[in-house]
């Protein structure tokens, strides 16, 4: 018996074991006697082989970077929600005490205002005098309050929940993996996206406050990001330099202290 030739669908089903037993038997019998259908069957095997051998498309580097940035932004967004919720409980007395404090808004808008508020109720510091000169068109990830305050937190001090107010800046955890070649751009992108990224609220602990202060020589950082550098844990610190739109950037190891900053890299980034 040699009826009409088999079509690809039937042969493909046979190969996947999808045919009923009796149908499979008759198809196999046909194949035994029909070279043309055996060739068709081989065509199907070739389809799988050709697909398997197709070159693997490689991930475009700019897409990798774009996704890193999107994830970093998402991290900050998430952290913001958490930290704002955490702060909500403390809001009331803070607003009351703010009446006796100077409220400083650092150029950015609503978000910056919130942080300035959070950082402003420590009446012992002269906030306005130490406000870093921010480029008014941009808002930063971490708004800085009193520039000299960081120095006021001695290194080695026990981490304190008051750290944010005494240090005047918050520590970001953007999740960015900074790279040598793109460090400046990555910092600039985070700082430049400030409006979108908003603020992330953990205050520095004593070690980090001492470290930052030593590295920046007491200047208020625009960004302190506990992230990664070349795949390893590191902290990236950026301070606005003399010229507007340029940043001095330091990468320090996770063990950075005031005594031993362990600077891995230092460079200047321009926007």
């Amino acid at each position, binding site marked *: 018996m040699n009826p009409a030739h088999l079509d690809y669908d039937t042969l493909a089903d*046979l190969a996947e074991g*999808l045919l009923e037993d009796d149908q499979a038997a008759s198809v196999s019998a046909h194949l035994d006697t029909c070279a043309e259908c*055996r060739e068709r069957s081989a065509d199907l095997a070739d389809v799988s082989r050709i*697909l398997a051998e197709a*070159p693997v498309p490689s991930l475009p580097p700019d897409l990798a970077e774009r*996704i*890193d940035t999107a994830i970093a932004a998402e991290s900050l967004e998430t952290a913001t929600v958490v930290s704002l919720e955490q702060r909500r409980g403390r809001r009331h007395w803070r607003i009351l005490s703010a009446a006796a404090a100077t409220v400083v808004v650092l150029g950015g808008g609503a978000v910056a205002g919130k942080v300035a508020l959070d950082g402003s109720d420590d009446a012992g510091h002269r906030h306005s005098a130490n406000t870093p000169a921010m480029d008014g068109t941009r808002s930063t990830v971490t708004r800085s309050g009193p520039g000299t305050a960081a120095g006021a937190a001695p290194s080695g001090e026990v981490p304190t929940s008051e750290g944010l107010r005494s240090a005047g800046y918050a520590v970001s955890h953007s999740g960015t993996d900074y790279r040598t070649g793109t460090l400046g751009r990555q910092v600039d992108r985070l700082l430049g996206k400030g409006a979108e990224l908003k603020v992330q609220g953990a205050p520095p602990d004593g070690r980090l406050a001492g470290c930052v202060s030593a590295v920046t020589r007491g200047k208020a950082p625009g960004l302190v990001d506990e992230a*990664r550098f*070349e795949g*390893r844990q590191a902290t990236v610190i950026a301070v606005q330099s003399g010229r507007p739109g340029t940043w001095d950037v330091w990468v320090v190891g996770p063990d950075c202290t005031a005594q031993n900053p362990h600077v891995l890299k230092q460079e200047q980034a321009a926007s």
Partner: protein
Amino acid sequence: MASLSMRRVDEVPDKELLARHAQGDPHAFAELVHRHRDRMWAVAIRTLGDPEEAADALQDACLSAFRAAGRFRGDAAVTTWLHRIVVNACLDRIRRKSVRPATPMGDDATFDAVAPKMPDPTDAHGVSLDVRTALEQLPFEQRAALVLVDMMGYSVDDAAQVMEVPPGTIKSRCARGRARLAPLLGHHRNRRDPKNVGGVEGGGMPK
């Protein structure tokens, strides 16, 4: 890629990374993506064909996974879960675009109109372009199944988990897809092995 060379032997398992992320570790998710993004990209670009669409789909998928990490059930491999999210992101892209003209969705009439009856043997396209244009002729489900099984080397069972369908459905989609691709990739095959006959058994490659 640099991230690969940074990998160490004492690597944290995927599930642990995902758990850390769910608990608020800010680096865990980026690390997870660095590990798997190359294959996630391969799935996206092969399933969608268009690099821009695939890039958007991959980004969508990464952010979806970031947000959904807390709902990861842990009964499948993290990679399976990630690839499911990628495949779904690709499908979303296709639906949102309401189908590019070159991508008929399971419409046999359209397919027949588009399918070349006599492939031009002098056609100078490279292998990958051949494969890509051929894949574009398939409905999404068949294409995704073949991408996972034949191209990415997933077992039928793993592909079934990714696409959340029974293994038999994956087999059937693969069979339909291969049957459609056979005439489209014919010229390529014949160029390589002009005389490909013999006891070769069946089309699929049951794993």
